């Protein structure tokens, strides 16, 4: 019954999509080593000077620092809030559960531009000046749904009788959470932290409304896209970041998988 031409068509299509997905990125990487300030063909020659200049641009390093700090902060807050929410919705089916689920998933279906401008209005009304941490407030909102998803799928994987056993042995509920539940879900907490970090680190729309003069890396990059001569430096930095992100994401994916495997046993 198995038709032979079908798998080969699928493989061909897969290959084609892969080529198209990687082509623009390959171009970026090629230009990051190209010895010319303008990103045009034909190529000039090989150079590492753009990578050297990355380390010398103080504006760029300041933006990078901002991005790392707010990504760390928002990922930490989103993971804590998401973790608390996940334990509540997985372990209890009480009134309020449905409403919480609906509200916490809503940021997934609202365009970021709306989240950005609504937070801009709030900050303006309360009188908080625009800054990079203000963008972090918004990043927590968009990260919470992902944190909830990752952590609750881990919680579903193990029954709550371990918590009950701990309590039978004299632990209070909060001790049981701290000494049994949290260690068990720790791979999911770390995976959530890493994913939320990358969400915040790459986010432009919300940040563009909220950072003021305190640019994050994507906001800084966007401002540089208008000055063609500065582009190779930006691209060199992006190539470095992509390499780091890849390492982080592969590590977090490995954590998530190893977490799931142990819960199935």
């Amino acid at each position, binding site marked *: *019954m198995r038709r032979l031409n*079908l798998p080969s068509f*699928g*493989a061909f299509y*897969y290959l084609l999509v*892969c080529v*198209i*997905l990687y082509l*623009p990125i390959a*171009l*970026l990487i090629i230009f990051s080593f190209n010895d010319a300030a303008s990103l*045009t*063909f034909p190529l000039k020659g090989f150079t590492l000077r753009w990578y050297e200049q990355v380390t010398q641009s103080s504006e760029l390093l300041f933006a990078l620092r901002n991005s790392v700090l707010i990504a760390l902060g928002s990922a930490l807050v989103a993971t804590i809030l*998401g973790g*608390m*929410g996940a*334990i*509540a*919705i997985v372990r209890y089916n*009480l009134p*309020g*559960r449905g409403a*919480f*689920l*609906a*509200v*916490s*998933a809503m*940021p*997934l*279906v*609202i*365009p970021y*531009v*709306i989240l950005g401008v*609504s*937070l801009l*209005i*709030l900050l303006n*009304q309360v009188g908080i000046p625009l800054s990079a941490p203000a963008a972090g*407030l*918004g990043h*927590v*909102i968009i990260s*919470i749904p992902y944190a909830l*998803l990752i952590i609750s*799928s881990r919680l579903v994987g193990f029954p709550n009788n371990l918590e009950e056993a701990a309590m039978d042995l004299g632990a209070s509920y909060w001790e049981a959470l701290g000494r049994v539940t949290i260690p068990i879900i720790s791979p999911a907490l770390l995976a959530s932290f890493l994913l939320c970090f990358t969400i915040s680190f*790459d986010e*432009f*729309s919300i940040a563009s*409304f909220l950072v003021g003069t305190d640019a994050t890396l*994507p906001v800084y*990059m*966007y401002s540089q*896209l208008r000055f063609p001569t500065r582009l190779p430096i930006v*691209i060199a930095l992006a190539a470095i970041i*992509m390499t780091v992100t890849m390492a982080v*994401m*592969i590590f977090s*994916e490995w954590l998530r998988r190893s977490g799931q495997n142990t819960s199935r046993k």
Partner: protein
Amino acid sequence: MKHRQRFLTLIGLPSIYLLLLFIVPLGLMAVFSFRAGTTGAARDVFTFDNYIKFFHNTSFQRLLWRSAGISFFMAIISCVLAYPLAYYLAFKAGSKKTFLMLLIIIPTWTSYLLRIFSWKLILGSSGLLNSVLQALGLIDQPSPILLYSRPAVVVTLIYVWVPFVMLPIFASLERIDRYLLEAAADLGCTRFEAFLRVTFPLSLPGVVAGFFFAFIPTLGEFVTPLLVGGAQGSMYGNLIQDQFMRALNWPMGSVMSLAMLVIVLLMMFLLTRVGPLTDLLGL
């Protein structure tokens, strides 16, 4: 009672955060939409002027509908392109599945801005496409192809979203019980019939989720039009961004944002008939 207390303690902090920094800002935006101006005395005026202006300005509405149309069209194409990919990975890739999946995901870890920007390097007048065509002797004058137009925006966004759209479709295909397909074959279905009557209907929640993954960000998109769309390719998101960042007419911008929100909620309502949102997200 004990349970209730623990539940409320756990859910309290995240609820307060979402209330203060998500629900309240949206509410404030609704309040702003009834104001006459951004600052000063105009703040305290209650007026329907912005709504009247919005509904009388056909160019606003045209851009909103056109952006919704573009997003819809783009999301459908992304689903169509992602489906065979997800199908291949779920049913044909075998033991290499995880690795092949990873290969599709890796490009999405490049900066979003640069993934969009890179299309300028392809479509621009001294870009890859032009250089290749010139080298092949197909054209003699380099000229930007597609760039600074709506099609450029659509092509770029499809590039950005196909991997993300593929994920939920793949997940829904993976969940299908393979015995159902055997049963269909035993009952005399051809492979194509089995696909139409078993596989495809069962994968529909994933397709709907994928559709939204692409549709919603695109509706609010203002970066891609700025980078590759030019003046011809601007979208509704640009209009909103303009009101807040340049025209500084926040009340009008609020009305525009609310109009967009209505469209999103309408789409959600129509398409969640397929299944509840929480199911689609796998929560």
